[in-house]
């Protein structure tokens, strides 16, 4: 784990999607849960995995693999979900696995490489160079804002 603690550190919840490490700004993550009894929604966008009941609230689940253009999961393990609030609505981003909370220094932050898959570039707020691996910062707002709407339009 990186513990390069300068003043400019940001905390991220890390998740794995298709083998890639992503970081979500910790203040945006409401909770992490097992998506249980997901109800599919016919006619919805493909990345819309369905809706589920999380403690009495209806949460819309977004399949991040579809969103990022990754193949469906085939390791037979269950997904996890990261709960996000966006414009007054509850969303759950379906991911492969939740990692730990990382404090990362701004010093390791870099913009998106120019050759990054545009689908990724659209939802990424840059990359952190960590020890041994790269962490893509997931811009939650962009995931939820222009994803489906853009497709629909």
């Amino acid at each position: 784990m990186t513990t390069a603690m300068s003043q400019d550190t940001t905390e991220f919840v890390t998740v794995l999607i298709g083998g890639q490490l992503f970081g979500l700004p910790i203040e945006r993550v409401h909770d992490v849960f097992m998506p249980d009894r997901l109800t599919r929604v016919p006619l919805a966008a493909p990345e819309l995995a369905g809706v589920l009941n999380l403690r009495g609230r209806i949460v819309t689940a977004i399949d991040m693999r579809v969103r990022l253009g990754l193949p469906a999961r085939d390791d037979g393990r269950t997904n996890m979900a990261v709960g996000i609030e966006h414009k007054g609505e509850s969303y759950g981003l379906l991911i492969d696995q939740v990692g730990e909370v990382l404090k990362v220094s701004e010093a390791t932050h870099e913009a998106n490489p120019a050759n990054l898959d545009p689908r990724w570039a659209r939802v990424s707020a840059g990359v952190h160079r960590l020890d041994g691996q790269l962490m893509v910062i997931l811009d939650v707002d962009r995931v939820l804002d222009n994803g489906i709407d853009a497709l629909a339009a």
Partner: protein
Amino acid sequence: MDDLLREFLTETNESLDTVDVQLVRFEQDPNDKKILDNIFRLVHTIKGTCGFLGLPRLEALAHAAETLMGKFRDGMPVTGEAVTLILSTIDRLKLVLDGLERQQEEPAGSDEDLIGKLEQMALHGAAEIAAPPTAPEDDSKPEQPDDETAAGLLAEQTLERPLRPGEVSLDELERAFRETSVELPEPEPATMPAQAAMDLEAAEIEVAEVVEAQAPEAKAPEAKKPEAKKAEAKKSDAKKPDAKKSDAKKAVPKAEDDDKAPESMVKNQSIRVNVETLEHLMTMVSELVLTRNQLLEIVRRHEDSEFKVPLQRLSNVTAELQEGVMKTRMQPIGNAWQKLPRIVRDLANELGKSIELESVGAETELDRQVLDLIKDPLTHMVRNSADHGLEGPEERRANGKSETGTIRLSAFHEGGHIIIEIADDGRGLNTEKIKAKAIANGLVSEADAEKLSENQIQKFIFAPGFSTAAKVTSVSGRGVGMDVVRTNIDQIGGTIDLKSVYGEGTTVTIKIPLTLAIVSALIVEASGDRFAIPQLAVVELVRAQTNSEHRIERIKDTPVLRLRNKLLPLVHLKRLLKIDGGQKLDEETGFIVVTQVGNQTFGIVVDGVFHTEEIVVKPMSSKLRHISMFSGNTILGDGSVIMIIDPNGIAAAFGAGTEAHRAEEDDAEAAHAQAAGQTMSLLVFRAGSPEPKAVPLSLVTRLEEIDAAKIERSNGRWLVQYRGSLMPLVTVNPHVTVRSEGTQPMLVFSEAGRSMGLVVDEIVDIVEDRLNIEVASEQPGVLGSAVIKGQATEVIDIGHYLPMAFEDWLSRKSIRVGGPSPKLLFVDDSPFFRNMLTPVLRAAGYEVVACTDGEAALATLKQDPRFDIVVADVEMPGMDGFELAEQVKGDPRTRHMPMIALSSVATPASIERGRSVGFDDHIAKFDRQGLIAALKECTVEWEKAA
């Protein structure tokens, strides 16, 4: 904000709304004392309350207005300017109140201008009025301010500031008190007689409120300002109490309240509850319902649970509680209309038009949440009608209309919905202009626009940023367009529709659910997923099985069900939602949820039906809202989330396919743009030639394929044993041969126990389209040709074939006839003949409105007397044709309208009777040619007369 102030604001705003309404009425009928009294009382109460709370600006204004109205009560003539002045005063009051609400104190500003005018006007009146009444003393009760209470209660209100305009110093009050020891508490403020002149001076001092203490008709005593003030203090409507106790140096508002309490308790059994409290209650009840559902679900799994009985009870109590809470939220829609008379009046003045606003059904109740949401759209639409819809008086006169335009608001319940109509008799929508604008705005290409029907074009006014007003007036064009209206209505699950006839007016119909919160829903299954269908839309459930009476049949690829002698179009839910996995559907079995949306009935085929459940509708995520098949989602008792089907969406999907077809194919139709233009289901078949033929599906009782071996020939006619009796068969034309082997397709028409089989070669399809007959036909049995699904199609005249099967078919009863010339009212109790003759009449060039009986016809005429002719069956149950004619001829508005009687028994006696009640002609039911000829004749005469 302190409670007192908040309550004051709520109450005052309500009072002001009422005043608005009353004033407009007052202007129309200045002699109505009662209305005047009401207005007076209201303004007075406002004034009193303001004084009580120490709101001098408001008080001074209300006071001046009241003074003027006092004059009116004394007989000063009410002029339009006076009303306008008072209305603007009320607007100012509202402005100040707004500021008060925001800043918790009166906004700075002067109202001298208005007050001056009010006084001026009152003065003019005063001159003519007898000398102002004198002192208030005449009345009985001594005014004894109960200082103790007063002082005790608002102790903190010490006057530590300079006097506001209109306030009186305590010293002065004190003096006044000493001078006048006696005051009269009046029984009711309303009775306060004119305080005429006195108020004038009073106005300056502000406080000088006439003591309304006076006995009802007593001369209005002219209160000296100070006394007046005290008087007020007493009055049951709060006033400016500070007067009371000078040495205490406090305002004593609460005293009033105390006085008032018992009275209002008696008067009125209701209390004010904060809306938030109600909302919270509602949320809690919703949660309770959910929890109860969960418990019920659990108990369902444990058969002999001891919880069963108490849970049942809990369930009942919850249901009642829910109902009760829902009830608290219901409000009459009139609350949303309250401001409209005023708005319309102001508009009429501003635009120089004469406008009458009629409203019907103001008492119709709906959920206040819904009410709030439709208030603005309604206001907007009424503004629109007044501004764009109605013409100015000259234009109206030129067009032969009365100078006064009418806007008619009506509301009524239908099923679980409330229907609101805003109708005007103005110029109607200019389709050409809209089309041009739509093309200019890029909403539609020029080529496509040509293909659209009139109604489709008119609907462009709901598109964002669409306004056809040539100039933006101060009235409309304020950045709120019909698109916003539609968005608002959509949001609450409502629909909006529009009908407009150029030159005759526009009617907008809004349909919205009564409540949004909790609905009863049927839980169904399709492809393993569960869905909720709102019970309101569900008519019945039918189980279809291969070998039962109900099985799903297909006409080409269209699934249909025979249900009580009707064909019901079906849609498979899983196919519609694209969750059938591309598998072939089980052909003949399934559960059919018979659903009704508006006047459209259809069946939704599902795999299973579970139970009904009260569900709490939760809004869908914004990511899902574009899916029109769903109206929301909910959490079921077992904790899972399911989607709620939107029957409107499904109905639209039914129409969508044909809509597309229409756009592609109906060039000719758009060109003709016949006013009639409603879509109907048409059965398309082939007979004798490759060209398709069609007949309205509603006329067809059943579609049959009969084993050819069963067809017999007897006495030169084809017959088949059908349902226990012999059914005559008729071929569509001589080119059709009745088959001798295999099966013979035919259309069966039944009425009153008799059936006829129309032999065809092949049944092709059922389509939803407009039936506009372009070319009338000379050929017997063919009404004419229409473009249906892009192909020229002959429309068959069933009326031609029926007598071929039974000579007396048409003479037995019902035939209904359409009216001549443009607009025709056709009255016949038999749906069969209605369906049959309507196309005939349309083909003859009439716009046909069909009614099922005399009462309905009268109601239609009452609502819209602009028909050119009435054609009525004389033999009808209930009000028959003769009676109808008497009524129509008895009404001055419709007296001139030509009427044609249709009858199967044309005896000289009945013809004579027909003449005597006012029928212009008498036609035998089956005589289509005769009818058309008679219609022409009547119309010609009618045109001459006009």
